[in-house]
């Protein structure tokens, strides 16, 4: 065998022994402990020892969705940050960019994800959806249509959906902050 050890010793005398914590684990620790969230966003860990599964609650203090509390589930796999976190809305909400199954249309969750992005960027991106819903490339086509045609009607629909009412025959979860 070649003598690799000699190269190592010459290179660096300091011990380089690394912990058994996985790269994904360290990265999640780093992402979470450096989160810089406004008061409108809050994380919740059902199991405080499990950093890979948690929820984020967004309570917008301005815009059309003010008054609602929106809960997203985050599932991070061991291939993070090579793979993006899997994010879904846990409630049935009336929003052009969230479908009735909870799928979210946010570019950095899919086609534009890269490992230099972090959980903070994802959360900020999610909050932006409530301030500026995008009607041009929607997931909930009806909601987008409403927003395009009549902003006031759309706002009324949002209000009623937040209270758990019906919009065009579809019942939505009550997400209004009491």
């Amino acid at each position, binding site marked *: 065998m070649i003598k690799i050890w000699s190269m190592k010793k010459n290179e660096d005398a300091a011990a380089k022994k690394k912990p058994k914590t996985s790269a994904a684990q360290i990265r999640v620790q780093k992402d979470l402990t450096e989160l810089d969230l406004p008061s409108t966003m809050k994380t919740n860990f059902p199991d405080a020892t499990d950093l890979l599964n948690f929820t984020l609650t967004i309570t917008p203090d301005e815009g059309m969705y003010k008054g609602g509390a929106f809960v997203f589930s985050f599932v991070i796999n061991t291939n993070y940050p090579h793979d993006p976190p899997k994010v879904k809305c846990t409630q049935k909400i009336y929003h052009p960019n969230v479908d009735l199954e909870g799928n979210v249309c946010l570019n950095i969750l899919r086609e534009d994800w890269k490992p230099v992005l972090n959980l903070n960027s994802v959360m900020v991106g999610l909050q932006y959806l409530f301030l500026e819903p995008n009607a*041009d490339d929607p997931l909930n086509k009806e909601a987008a249509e409403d927003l395009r045609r009549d902003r006031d009607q759309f706002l009324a629909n949002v209000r009623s959906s937040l209270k758990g009412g019906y919009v065009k025959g579809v019942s939505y979860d009550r997400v209004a902050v009491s």
Partner: protein
Amino acid sequence: MSESQTINEATTNIQTGQPDAKTRRYDRQLRLWAATGQNALESSRILVLSASATSTSILKNLVLPGIGHFTILDASNVTPQDAGNNFFLDGPDSIGKNRAEEAVRLLGELNDGVGGTAVKESVGEVLAKQPDWVKRFTLVIAHNLENNLLEKLSTLLWEDEAGPPLVVVKSAGFLAEFFIQFRDHSVIESHSDSAPSLRITNPFPSLLSLATSLDFSKMDPTDHSHVPYVLILVHALENWKKIHGGSPPKTYAEKQEFKKTILAMKVKQDEENFDEAEAQAYRCWSETKIPSDISSLFSLPAPSPSSNPNTFQFYTLLSALKTFTSIQPPYALPLSATLPDMHTSTDTYVHLQKLYKARAEEEKAVFKELLKKEGGGENVDEEAVDNFLKNCHALKVLKGKKWGAFDTDREALATALQTYPKEASTHLALSALSALPTDVSPAEESLRATAQNIVGQDVELPDEFDNAVGEIARSPSADLPTTSAFLGGLVAQEAIKMITKQYVPVNGYCVVDLVETWTGVIA
């Protein structure tokens, strides 16, 4: 679909779309060369001279993807040395048996669909008694064949214009090279990354009228964010031309300004279609002419009708293409019917696709009329025309050389030793090895002297030659398992490209050094 249905119920009667066993077996390669490439492979007949470890490694990688048939020519019996380094011999059980027969038997197990024949004769005998036999194959591969036989064989195949290509493979220890001898190799499906023109700079009538009819100021915001970049570019370019005397952006500053104009058309920051248009804006100045790689082919001398029929057909198509680009505006290559994906609505995309297809059909009709006027043009079938037109923006033609010509061109050798000292030194050391008698291991000094004779006494051998010649002297007759496997992959890969006429094969000597692990191409 109701949720109470089981997967089973939901999927009965839909198994029709599932591919057959053969397609499933070849699935991972069909995604590279499709059914056309596979058909070409399956019709091929390969001749390999000797059943060395390198030869069987090459054949393994041709039998697995499914060539039609292979023949191994080898008169020798398996030695204990052979049995130790060749995976397609049965260890000590094969010792004493004919090498070709043993190898054919074990290689044949890899794929039932491939035929194999062992011919227990020596290359010398065959070339002396019935030389034309070797011309019956699609491709001939020779590993570490003696120089005099190689000279005879390569001359025989080179002089017949319709003769098969010859792959000459040499190896010793960690060093190796191979060379493909062919006269003319034309590739329609080069699978190049270059994209066909979208005719932004010279739009056809229906595209132009659609693009210029757009009134961006009156659009609803959703429509505005869904105008495909092709239409944005045609629209913007026409406007630009109006105020720039009919010319597209030319200088760097103009190009930057044009891009700015496009981004200024946005009404909202996040309109991806305008970002795409900016990213594709280069088409407004790069698509104005036929790519030089293609127009340069128009001046190539056409081969004689006695050459390979495939080659002849290619030049017939090429000649019609040349005429097509010169008879009428826009003097462009025939339009491609395939539209890349772009940010837009389904309806707009499908509509645009239809416009492109319709126009492509019209141009194809013109092309076919021109083709008919070419000698032999009426024999080209529809499929071949379609394939040619689909790929005409990325055609490739390689003009090859005879094996060994490089080693008699002292000027070229001297230049190569200066420009590519590592590659050229390795090639030269291997040439020196095969110039010496094979029955005794040559001394480093005689290898050096032989190399000096090849390049001429006045040429100084570079330092890199010491590395190469030392390595050859160390293991002149070693057919190492890893070197043979490495060559087995490289040579088979190039053989597949030659046979399928897809992707672009290497032209020149491909040299391999497995000490530092590099490959290079010279001559």
